[in-house]
């Protein structure tokens, strides 16, 4: 575990919505196509990250205003942001995987070992970002591998490699965190005051390895304001289970003690 912890910094202020990252990811990882469905939600034809889409470009289209010049730049916004597995510091999927298939790699990424995963689907309901999903044909869960195979040989992930505008930056996480803050300062100095860095460190997820710079409220990019690792609910749950077990055990013994022999 001597390797440096790496990360993504996806800067939507640089994204041109070309979907090169989606294509590169699919080609490198041999993922199937999503079909030629047109969602009607701006230029998005994928909807969200899924078992077969590990990079997904979101098209956040502001509402055009009625009247002359309603589509002018000062009235209209059109943001793109390439979504990906967040590779959480405390990852719900990794915590609860019952087979140990989901591991943390030496690069700090969260990786599902496909030969160990048995497809129980519990990671699906444990991911606060809705990333992991079970492939209905294959039966196992899949998500972004952080291009573990490429990182192993010193290459950067396919999406970052293919990104033509360096909107997807890849590098040591600690450096990217500094870069992100500097980029925020730069954007502010240029008058882009709605730019935000998305890195939920004050939640139980305790930070993510795929940082995002987005314009406007992160919620319009489906980035939750307070993602929580579901393990935080377990204590209360097991307390309830203990009460249930107590009622069951003591109740059945008392019920028989209080009744005549059959």
């Amino acid at each position, binding site marked *: 575990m001597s390797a440096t912890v790496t990360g993504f910094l996806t800067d939507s202020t640089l994204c041109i919505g070309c979907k090169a990252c989606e294509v590169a990811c699919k080609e490198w990882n041999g993922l199937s196509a999503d079909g030629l469905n047109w969602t009607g939600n701006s230029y998005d034809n994928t909807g969200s990250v899924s078992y077969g889409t590990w990079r997904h470009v979101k098209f956040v289209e502001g509402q055009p205003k009625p009247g002359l010049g309603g589509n002018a730049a000062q009235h209209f916004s059109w943001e793109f942001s390439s979504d990906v597995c967040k590779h959480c510091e405390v990852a719900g999927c990794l915590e*609860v995987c019952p087979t140990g298939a989901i591991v943390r790699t030496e690069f700090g990424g969260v990786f599902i070992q496909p030969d160990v995963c048995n497809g129980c689907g519990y990671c699906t309901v444990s991911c606060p970002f809705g990333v992991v999903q079970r492939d209905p044909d294959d039966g196992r869960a899949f998500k972004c591998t952080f291009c573990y195979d490429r990182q192993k040989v010193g290459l950067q992930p396919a999406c970052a490699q293919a990104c033509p505008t360096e909107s997807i930056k890849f590098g040591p996480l600690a450096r990217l965190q500094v870069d992100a803050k500097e980029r925020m300062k730069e954007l502010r100095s240029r008058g882009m005051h709605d730019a935000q860095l998305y890195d939920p460190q004050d939640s139980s997820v305790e930070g993510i390895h795929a940082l995002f710079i987005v314009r406007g409220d992160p919620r319009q990019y489906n980035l939750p304001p307070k993602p929580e690792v579901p393990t935080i609910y377990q204590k209360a749950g097991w307390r309830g289970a203990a009460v249930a077990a107590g009622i069951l055990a003591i109740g059945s013994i008392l019920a028989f003690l209080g*009744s005549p022999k059959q």
Partner: protein
Amino acid sequence: MIDPLQRPSPEYTDWSRENRLFEIRREAQEKGRVLTPGVRPPGAPFPVASPETGYYGIPLLKQAPWTWEIPTYFFVGGATGSAAMIGAAARWTGRDLELARDCRYVAAVGAIVSSALLIGDLGRPARFLAMLRVFKRQSPMSVGAWTLFGFGTFSTAAALAEWVNGRFDSAPVRIAGNVAEALSALLGLPLASYTGVLIGASVVPVWNHSVETLPIHFGMTGLNSAVSILELMGHHSRALSMLGMGASTVEILEGAHIEGRKNPVLEPLKRGTSGFLTRLGGALSGPVPLALRLTAAFTTGRRARKLCRIAAACSIAGSMLTRIGWLRAGQASVKDARLPLQI
């Protein structure tokens, strides 16, 4: 001005496409939106990504991929785990040895059915073995898989010992059977209710907002259905009746607790198909069997037996419906894109 509803001239032959336009227009007029992807006629709401709607209202969370096997397993596991405990209690107190014998068989059959259901969900038998690679305390799924594995082993051993003992009376087999029975009862306790922790400790809002009470809810409906299965097998005793009534009473409290909570996250428990199912399940495992069992307690003979059997059938149906309802409530909760975004 052209009347949009006017039909084209007879020379126009591509009627299917023209009719499709009328269809879209009608749908937009009636519902205010057209659900066909990509088709947005004038007048239909424009798709919006905003802090109020999230990303075009697309749910952030993913649906649990489980099909009918899982709610059925929740039901079977709950019933058999409780049956093992009831059987052990009947033997330890020496009150009902015949019941104890049947409980061993119910537990063993239930454990085998449970494993079959889980394997059905995973797709291949070998995949279940992957569950036994590691034990993770922080994973309710891992704890549950190991509990079921242990429960299956001990309850099957106890049932085998019972079967052997019925033919040749042998002290070592009897002792081994009793030890296995005690262990299966011990593991039956978590087996009956861990499924509540399993879904409660998840990111699905309606589940994790009920995490404290879900295990009690599932445990009590499980106990009620175990009592009911044993009653339908022909065991009628005051102890079983009392257990059933106790479980129903806790269920009534649980139902009152859910109905009394005013939280938009709990909407799926009160509205739609999931709300109907959880409420019907709650009624069938709480007030209905309690009333029937109370009436049976004050009647005698065949009518009392009949009432007991109806109560038993209600409780079993209630336990199953409760689990289907809760899983559907989870689906409805995930579909609500606003919840995880705190809109």
